[in-house]
């Protein structure tokens, strides 16, 4: 007890290091330096948490760490167990590689003088998420939720365009609503129990539930805090801010927002559920039922929404709504395996979704920075790494065996069997429908990005609905003359140039048009060389992790099981 292993300092060190790294950045005011600090901090934090994870997973224990000279109910403290260490390691890992993969886009999208602020926000974001993971005090949770909200909004809007700022204000309003509700829940919880520390809250709440005193306020408090965190993690009816925010931000931001920021709140919710409210009580008061129903709705309706999208990032963002639905469904199953599957799904989604967003960004980079499907046709041939990564991510999201998305689905089935008789058929049907829908919106995109331009039959049925009409061009360009041809898309020309099919478009066009085309060709060439080492490395690492999670899920589930028991 008195001789604490040095490893036990690591949660505190990692929170501190990220915070201090962020605070020191204004001194340098240089994007490159800030990026180096950021990467260094993330590596250091990741290594520390990984060592802690190994230590805790082998010994199978958890510990509390006093933040100050006063023990638990009086001072602040943090608590770490295998689950927390696992999540923290994964967060550092995913954040590091998301930044590495989207670095070009960051330097393009963020104004030069403000790049250091972007990395500063990344540092603060990581700090707040680590604090959310490790905190053992609900009010500390609230304070770091606010840092998380502000930093997340800042990384959305740092791509300086009207669209992102509109998305940010919607995101901010919904987030503040969520944190307001959470704070109100905490206030009432404090009024009823007189504690803020998770460990001290639990016995009081269990006793209250046993005696039946404050029955209604207790239900209300649990509902409100869960509601607040659900709003922030974009559970189905509260998801309206998500597609805009995630769809319009720069690729790294989208990857991190979708892969990690949403998960930070869910982890806090899991901690509240296990450490404060206890799952039995949540099941007794029907909170888990509500989570289950909304999760199922999100799984299906999020996918339906994704089906209607023609913008690759917005589609991926709607897919996140569906995946959040899976997680809440798992938590609402009232079974241990369900919760384990939900935690596993957090991980598999956290390694898959950033890969999809980064791959989408990489594909758009070689297609004239357009995210519309029609412009992305054949993009995978120009950026093979992104193409392969997108297909693997899509297969993983659909839930094909060998990929990371498969084990959680398997365990959701097992959890449903463990659960009551009403849930089993619902889960079976919902999982089947959702898998089919996932396949329906991901596979066409995968086929589309791997299509070549001059595939037979392509112009025959494809382009007659195309609003910008390059099918028309081929049919009537003689009649319309140069004017329309001039306005035709640079992206098409680019593709044409790359695949040697430019002549077909160009032969009747004016001289100006030819010049335009050659510029476009140069542009295309330029893009081709732009998949950097960092992007390729991050894609390879994400693919490898995806396979690793998909194949070696056994040990991971052991760690999660141990972690949930010790939570």
């Amino acid at each position, binding site marked *: 007890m008195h001789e604490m292993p040095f490893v036990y300092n690591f949660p505190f060190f990692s929170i501190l290091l990220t915070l201090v790294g962020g605070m020191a950045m204004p001194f340098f005011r240089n994007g490159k330096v800030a990026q180096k600090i950021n990467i260094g901090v993330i590596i250091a934090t990741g290594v520390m948490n990984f060592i802690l994870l190994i230590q805790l997973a082998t010994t199978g224990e958890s510990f509390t760490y006093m933040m100050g000279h006063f023990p638990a109910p009086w001072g602040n403290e943090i608590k770490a167990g295998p689950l927390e260490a696992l999540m923290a390691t994964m967060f550092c890992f995913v954040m590091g590689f998301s930044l590495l993969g989207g670095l070009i886009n960051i330097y393009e999208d963020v104004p030069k003088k403000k790049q250091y602020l972007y990395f500063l926000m990344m540092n603060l974001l990581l700090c707040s998420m680590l604090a959310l993971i490790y905190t053992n005090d609900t009010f500390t949770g609230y304070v770091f939720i606010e840092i998380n909200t*502000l930093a997340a909004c800042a990384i959305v809007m740092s791509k300086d365009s009207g*669209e992102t700022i509109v998305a940010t204000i919607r995101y901010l309003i919904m987030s503040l*609503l969520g944190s*307001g509700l959470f704070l109100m829940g905490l206030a009432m919880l404090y009024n009823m129990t007189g504690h803020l520390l998770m460990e001290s809250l639990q016995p009081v709440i269990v006793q209250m539930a046993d005696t039946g005193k404050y029955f209604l306020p207790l239900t209300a408090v649990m509902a409100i805090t869960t509601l607040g965190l659900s709003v922030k993690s974009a559970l189905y009816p509260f998801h309206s801010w998500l597609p805009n925010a995630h769809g319009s931000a720069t690729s790294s931001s989208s990857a991190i927002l979708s892969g990690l920021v949403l998960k930070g709140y869910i982890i806090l919710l899991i901690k509240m559920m296990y450490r404060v409210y206890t799952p039995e009580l949540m099941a007794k008061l029907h909170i888990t039922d509500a989570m289950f129903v909304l999760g199922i709705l999100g799984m299906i309706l999020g996918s339906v929404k994704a089906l209607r999208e023609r913008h690759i990032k917005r589609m991926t963002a709607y897919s996140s709504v569906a995946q959040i639905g899976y997680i809440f469904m798992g938590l609402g199953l009232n079974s241990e395996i369900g919760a384990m599957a939900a935690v596993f799904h957090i991980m598999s989604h956290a390694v898959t979704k950033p890969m999809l967003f980064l791959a989408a960004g990489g594909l758009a980079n070689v297609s004239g920075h357009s995210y519309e499907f029609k412009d992305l046709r054949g993009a995978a041939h120009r950026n093979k790494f992104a193409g392969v990564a997108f297909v693997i991510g899509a297969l993983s999201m659909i839930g094909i065996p060998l990929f990371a998305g498969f084990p959680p689905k398997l365990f959701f089935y097992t959890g449903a069997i463990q659960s009551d008789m009403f849930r089993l058929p619902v889960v079976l049907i919902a999982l089947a429908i959702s898998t089919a829908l996932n396949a329906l919106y991901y596979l066409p995109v995968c086929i589309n990005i791997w299509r070549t331009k001059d595939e037979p039959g392509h112009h025959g049925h494809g382009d007659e609905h195309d609003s910008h009409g390059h099918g028309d061009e081929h049919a009537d360009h003689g009649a319309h003359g140069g004017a329309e041809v001039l306005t035709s898309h640079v992206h098409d020309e680019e593709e044409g140039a790359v695949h040697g099919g430019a002549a077909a478009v160009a032969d009747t066009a004016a001289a100006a048009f030819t010049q335009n085309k050659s510029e476009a060709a140069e542009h295309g060439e330029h893009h081709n060389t732009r998949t950097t080492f960092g992007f390729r490395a991050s894609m390879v690492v994400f693919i490898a992790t995806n396979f690793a999670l998909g194949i070696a899920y056994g040990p991971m589930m052991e760690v999660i099981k141990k972690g949930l028991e010790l939570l």
Partner: protein
Amino acid sequence: MGWFTNHYYEIAAMILFGVGFMGLLLNKNLIKKIVGLNIMDTAVYLLLAQRGMIFGRVAPILGDNLNPSAQQYINPIPAGLVLTGIVVSVSVSAFSLALTHRLYKKYHTLNLDEILLKSKQEKLKAETH
């Protein structure tokens, strides 16, 4: 009447929360949304802080009393928490006002619906050109 005389602070806080909530959800004007948000936050602080108050006891400033007894002073915890909360709420409102400022510069309106429409229009224009 007991339900009112014993809980008037909490009831007022809830009404204020509702007013702020509706202001946040129903107003289309961004400035009013932010005011609504602030009212909502203050309502929560009122709900939290009223719990510390105990009739007949004073604020926990000890002064010369070197052997304080818990029977003399009110509960200091809610005050500390609300102090944190107030600072959080001013940061948040400054940030949202800055966003409003930028949106006005870009779209010349404060109405969120009009802003959404204009941004959509802009996007469509960018697509057609």
